[in-house]
């Protein structure tokens, strides 16, 4: 057991830090070209798709370097390394694993260069957690497929140019996991209609998407017909260490501590209130658990053992922290906590109240907590399936 970094890992950290100090000016000093310049520079460094194979334009960065990169970027509150989060997280890896040579040439560079933003067409009106039960239909018609159906809760759909779309090409199947086929579809194809949905925080991050007689060329199929479930499962398995998230949670916790130090509760300093102190300590224990769970999983990966369902442990911690930290801040702030940006008594520009309404983005998005509990109970503890 050893928590030290090697000299080369340490020098990589220094490299990231000095890059950040050279290229990340304070928010007020950033001009309108800042983001484009930033993306170009991190791309030139090879830090977009850092772990990807070199033949696809990645850097084949090791797990620890990847962890260091994410950690330092999160600490500096840097913009993301690339604009297509989903493209980098699983569309790209999915194409590299299942795509044709032509698909790789066509799609991978644009993801790395932040030219194209991807969204993910999984959930449907009647099938969210029960993902494999999807009904959106694709029929082979010569050189193309005809897609009809509906997707919903598609995060990023209002501004994405492409969607990775899960459809059903066969309805008469023994297992619902069979007969699913995956496609890469441009959002401006005729017959694709996006209707943004406003969430409870007032944002329009997700949308419903209607597909009416959309013609998708056969060459846009990802993987074989009927292989869509495997494509999806192995693409989602491309998740790596959650260290970046942990750093974000530590930052949030620090902000909460600052808030507590400047807030009074029933006329007393809130940071002296035993309940407040213990609540914050409980958050800190969970974030620390995420950190050290993550390091145990990282060690497993370094030893060449695949990560399986253990990551659900940290997803559950993350979900409860996302809900509880903001909710605690809003509660602590009393009536001021209700005020949004612009309110005369709003605290920290209303950020606590705003994010207290945004937790479902994270908590529901990657599989609900109850789905994570099913995964843990069934795959790690061997309980019978529902």
């Amino acid at each position, binding site marked *: 057991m050893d928590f030290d970094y090697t000299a080369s890992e340490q020098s990589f950290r220094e490299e990231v830090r000095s890059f950040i100090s050279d290229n990340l000016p304070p928010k007020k000093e950033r001009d309108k070209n800042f983001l484009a310049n930033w993306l170009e520079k991190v791309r030139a460094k090879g830090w977009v798709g850092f772990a990807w194979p070199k033949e696809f334009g990645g850097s084949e960065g090791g797990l620890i370097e990847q962890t260091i990169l994410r950690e330092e970027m999160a600490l500096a509150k840097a913009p993301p390394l690339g604009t297509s989060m989903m493209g980098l997280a699983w569309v790209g890896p999915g194409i590299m694993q299942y795509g044709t040579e032509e698909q790789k040439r066509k799609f991978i560079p644009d993801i790395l260069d932040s030219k194209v933003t991807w969204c993910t067409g999984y959930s449907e009106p009647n099938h969210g957690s029960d993902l494999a039960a999807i009904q959106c239909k694709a029929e082979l018609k010569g050189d193309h497929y005809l897609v009809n159906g509906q997707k919903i809760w598609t995060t990023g759909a209002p501004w994405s140019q492409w969607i990775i779309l899960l459809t059903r090409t066969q309805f008469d199947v023994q297992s619902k996991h069979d007969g699913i086929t995956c496609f890469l579809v441009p959002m401006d194809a005729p017959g694709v209609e996006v209707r943004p949905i406003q969430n409870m925080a007032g944002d329009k991050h997700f949308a419903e998407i209607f597909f009416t007689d959309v013609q998708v060329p056969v060459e846009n199929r990802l993987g074989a017909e009927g292989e869509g479930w495997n494509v999806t499962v192995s693409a989602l398995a491309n998740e790596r260490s959650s260290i970046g998230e942990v750093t974000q949670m530590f930052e949030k916790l620090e902000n909460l501590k600052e808030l507590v130090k400047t807030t009074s509760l029933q006329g007393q300093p809130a940071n002296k209130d035993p309940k407040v102190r213990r609540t914050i300590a409980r958050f800190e224990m969970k974030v620390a*658990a995420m950190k050290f769970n993550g390091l145990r999983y990282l060690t497993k990966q370094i030893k060449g053992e695949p990560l399986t369902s253990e990551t659900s442990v940290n997803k559950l911690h993350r979900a409860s922290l996302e809900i509880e930290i903001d909710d605690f801040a809003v509660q602590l702030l009393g009536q001021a906590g209700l005020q949004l940006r612009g309110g005369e008594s709003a605290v920290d520009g209303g950020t606590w109240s705003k994010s207290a309404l945004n937790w479902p983005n994270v908590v529901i998005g990657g599989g609900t907590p109850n789905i994570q509990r099913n995964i843990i109970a069934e795959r790690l503890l061997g309980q019978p399936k529902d």
Partner: protein
Amino acid sequence: MNFGFTEEQSLLRDQVERFMKEACPMPKVREIAASESRFDSTLWQQVADLGWLGLTIPEAHGGLGLKWIDLTVVLEAAAEGLCPLPIASQALASAAVLTCGNDQQKNDWLPAMAAGKAICTIGLYDEANWIDPKAITAQAHASEGGYVLKGTKPFVNDAAAAHYLLLAVNGPNGLALAAVAKDDVKITHQPTMDTTKPMASVNLDGVSISAEFLLPMSEEQLAFLTDCGAVATTAEMVGAGAAILAMTSNYAKERIQFGKPIGQYQGVKHRLADMYVDLESYRSLSYYAAWSVDDDVAGLAKAVSLAKGYASDAFAQIGIDGVGLHGAIGFTAEYDAQLYLKRSKWARPMYGDSDYHMDRIATLGGL
């Protein structure tokens, strides 16, 4: 960066698990716990021969010169089977001698402790739930040629089995550890919930010790020994928690109700998943705390409080859910689940409960 165990540590774990299975299975644990001495000298000798009592004692003093992370491998694996032998107390007593003793005392005492010939324990605080130097009320007064002790140590683990006890007192020059022999003090066994963890009160009134048996102890040393106690306790909570989770999970797969194994119902399987999440989380925190004892003393207090703060409540809940999910059978004395629930009650206040540790986390975090 490597947050995993070495091959040697894995072999050590296998060795302990084999010992528990072959030499100290649950019927034996129950037999020892129900016996007059609550101790088994044959098993103790075996444990000593295996080297487990000298793990953290330097080689120069007859030990193996390993680290606390190695010790916690033993404590965790032994606690899976609720081992009633005072291995943790012995390790804490050695830590006390290493921390507060002089060279002479280390030379004289540690080899016998490593060999198991001197069974030892420590007793720090005299208040039931207060971790603070002020919670030490027993006293040592200067007398001709040494000291006279006064007061009672009400909560001393494994006192009845020990030959020597290292007990915190207020001496003429501040805090100290009084090293006393079992026969010189009055030890009274206290009935408690967890019979695998014998507790006694030790009355010190009028006991005389010579000067070299009073070891000066700073507040920092007291805090360090307390943190070591919490690390040892948390390691045992990892092993015992894993055991009752496995027991309960297996039961849920086999117990049929309404035509299905109860583990198929989300009301049951989600509780099991939550137990797993908590166990794995305090496991990670516990390993980090154990590593910190030797390799990051500056960060030890925080690491310990994160681990023991998390584990105290989580293991208590795991104990309750483990018994509860079994239904009525879990409530019976015959079934082993209840022994783990009792261990979770025992572990909760030891070296600080969750309230203490969470408050310390807040303080260390700048609140």
